[in-house]
Every structure is written in C-alpha cells, then in structure tokens.
C-alpha cells in the first residue's frame, strides 16, 4: 500500500472499502469491513460457545477466558449502572467485544479495521444514544426531561443551563464515535507511515539503512501502543455506555 505513487505515502489507502465475497458480495455491497465484523462476531461467539463446552466445575484455559470475559463485563455493568445493570449486560457485552475484536483484528497485517470508519462508529454511538434515551423515557416518562435542569439552579440561569445540557447530551453521539474512529485511524496511519519509511529508506540503501532500522524499531513499539489503544478504546466505549445507561436509569 505504500510508495505506490513513486515517492508519496498513501497512508489513507488502507481505509478504502472494497467489495468482498466475490460477485455475490459485490451485488449486495458487502465490504471487507463486513467480513471483519463477521469474523469478530464469530470469534466472540466461538470463545463463549467453544470455551463453555466443557461446563467444567474447575475451568480449563479457554473456559476461564470465557468466564473472565463474562464476569469482567458483568462487573462493569454492576459497578457502573448499579441497580438494574444486569438487564443491559448482553448489549454492553456485545458492544465491548465487537469493538475489541474489531480493533485487535485490525492490527493484523492485511486485515481491515472496521472501527476506523466514522460511519460504523457513528452508527454504534447513535445506537447507544437511542438506547439510552429510550431507556430513560421508559423508566421516567416525561420526568426524564428534568435531567436537563439540575436541581438548585436559579431560574434566571435555567435557559442557558438547559441549552448547555441539551448540547452536551447530544454531543455524546459525536464524542463517542469520533473518539474511537480517530484513535483507530490515527494509529493505523502512523503504523503505515513508519512502515513506508522502512520500505523507502531501505530501498534507498547505504546510510539510509540506519533510519530505516530506527523506523522499524519505532513501528514495533508503536504496535505495542496500538494494542493498548485498541483495548483501551473498546473499554472506554463500553464504560461510557454504562455511565450513560446509569444516568438513564437513575437520572444523575
């Protein structure tokens, strides 16, 4: 993907969507991003189904991993959402592991990162926003709108405060989606740029082999960082979802 146009770096080419699954995929606009989504979902389900197959009292490695995944997200739901958190456990679990596997799989060479597309992350954050608003309206009815006017605010300040609260509430869609998208995209651009350095400087030969080697070392370190970012961003997305759900269930 690098150094295609003689001497410029095409760091964005990696995000280009292509039809996948041959002619059938082309006819229904199934992209390689969707292939990765299927792989990620399949791996999540495989972890749970294959891992729990022994149903052992003392779990083996894979079962322990599946149980750890389950209890980690369950703990997050119970801690963050509080009372009534168990109801939202499946959706938080799916969001967390869908994003986590998407992020981590994207780090493999030639694998597409579907979380690096704003359209995908925006859809997910919009889904969370709609879910949260729906839950809030269902739990509290019209009383939900008192959320936008915190108690103890002078009446004169009310219009301004309500405006700010509504903007901050709506901006959750943007912040949630852009945070994930920008992190994943930036990481992959940097990895691509340094990989291109290695190739271009390496081809130049001679003295340029030194910076080429340094770029390679940097890329190895960056890859570790990107693993951290991939995990962290999935966690951030899930925990913010939990916090928003807490607000929806308990209104502050």
């Amino acid at each position, binding site marked *: 993907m690098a150094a295609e146009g003689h*001497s*410029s*770096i095409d*760091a*964005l*080419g990696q*995000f*280009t*969507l*292509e*039809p996948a699954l041959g002619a059938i995929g082309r006819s*229904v*606009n*199934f*992209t390689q*991003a*969707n292939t990765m*989504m*299927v792989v990620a*979902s399949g791996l*999540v*389900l495989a972890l*749970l*189904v294959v891992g*729990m197959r022994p*149903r052992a*009292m003392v779990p083996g490695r894979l*079962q322990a991993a*599946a*149980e750890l995944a*389950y*209890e980690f997200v369950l703990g997050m739901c119970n801690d963050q959402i509080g009372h009534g958190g168990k109801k939202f*456990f*499946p*959706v938080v*679990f*799916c969001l967390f592991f*869908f994003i986590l596997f998407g992020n981590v799989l994207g780090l493999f060479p030639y694998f597409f990162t*579907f979380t*690096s*597309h*704003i*359209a*995908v992350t925006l*859809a*997910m954050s919009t889904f969370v926003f709609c879910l949260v608003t729906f839950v809030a309206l269902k739990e509290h009815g019209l009383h939900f709108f008192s959320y936008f006017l915190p108690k103890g605010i002078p009446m004169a300040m009310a219009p301004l405060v309500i405006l700010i609260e509504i903007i901050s509430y709506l901006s959750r869609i943007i912040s949630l989606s852009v945070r994930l*998208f920008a992190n994943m*995209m930036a990481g992959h*651009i940097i990895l691509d*740029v340094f990989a291109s350095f290695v190739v*271009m*400087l390496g*081809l*130049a*030969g*001679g003295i*340029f082999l030194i910076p080429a080697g340094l770029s390679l070392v940097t890329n190895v370190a960056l890859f570790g960082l990107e693993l951290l970012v991939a995990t962290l961003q999935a966690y951030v997305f899930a925990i913010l979802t939990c916090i928003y759900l807490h607000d929806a269930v308990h209104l502050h």
Partner: protein
Amino acid sequence: MKPLRRVVPFAASLLMLPVAAMAAGMPQMDFKNPLTTSQVVWGAIIFAVLYIVASKFALPKVGAVLEERAAHIANDLEAAQASKLKADAGMAEATAAIAKARAEAQSAINAALDAAKGAAAEQSAALNARLEKQLSDAETQIARARTQAMSALREVATETAATVVARLTGQVPDPQRLSGAIGAALAARGVG
C-alpha cells in the same frame, strides 16, 4: 544522488500529511461510495445477529455454569459449616464428659483415701494402745524387779560387811551401827 531525490519529496510529503489527509479526502468521508453506507447496514445486521445469539444462547450458558459453580461452592460451604458445628458440639460433649469423669474419679479417690486413712488411724491407735500397755507393764515389772534387787542388795551388803568386819576384827559388829552405816553408804551412792 538518486536516493536523495527519492527521500526529499518523501519527507516533504510527510510534513504535508495532515493537510493532505483533509484535502485528498479520507475514504471514510466518501459518502458517494455506496459501500460506505452499505457497510453500516450490513454491520447492523451482523451486530443484531451477534446480540441475539449472545443474549439468547451463548451468555446464558456461561451464566448457568457460573451460577452452578456459585451454588456448588455455597452448598459446600454450608455443609462444611454444619459439620463444623457438629464437630464443635461433639467436642463440647467430650470435654464435658471428660470433666465429669475426672470429677468422679477425684471424688472416688478422695473417698478411698479417707477410708484408708481412717482405717490406718484406727489400726495405729489400737497398736499404740497395745504397745503403751505392754510398755507400762514392762515398766512396772522392771520397777518391781529393781526394788527387789535393791532390798536384796542391802541384805547382801550387810551380810558381807558383817563377815568382813568379823574376819578383820574377830568380833561381831553391832547390827544397829552396821545397818546405819550401810544405809548411809547406799544413800551416798544413790541406790538406797
């Protein structure tokens, strides 16, 4: 020269990267491409399938195993607690029994000791009395024998003295004077 020609524009393009990214347009922002929106539709379908399979099938299975284990552990703990209570009760019972047995044994020992002491005291009192009697009997016999011996001593002394005097002087001594002198001599020796 050739490598430099390649590297310089490359470095320049690197500096321009953020600008280029915005200017060239990210593939993510290319909403004219039908794939950009279609991936979201497919993504929604895939996520829905993931959610349904996970929430209806995969996750409850994990939950069931975890609950089973928690119940098993709770049962075991309960059983252990019950056994411990039972063991504690048995222990207390045993301790009480031991204390009771010890007290009984102690009282039996005391009774036996008292009885033995009483019997021994009686026996020794009887023995003492018998010995005392024998002693006093012996003493009176001795006293009698002594007085007899003492009175015999005076006779023997008088006869001997009379004989000695008669042999030495040739005349029988006055019995009155002799008896007085013997009495004085015996009294002086403390036997009279």
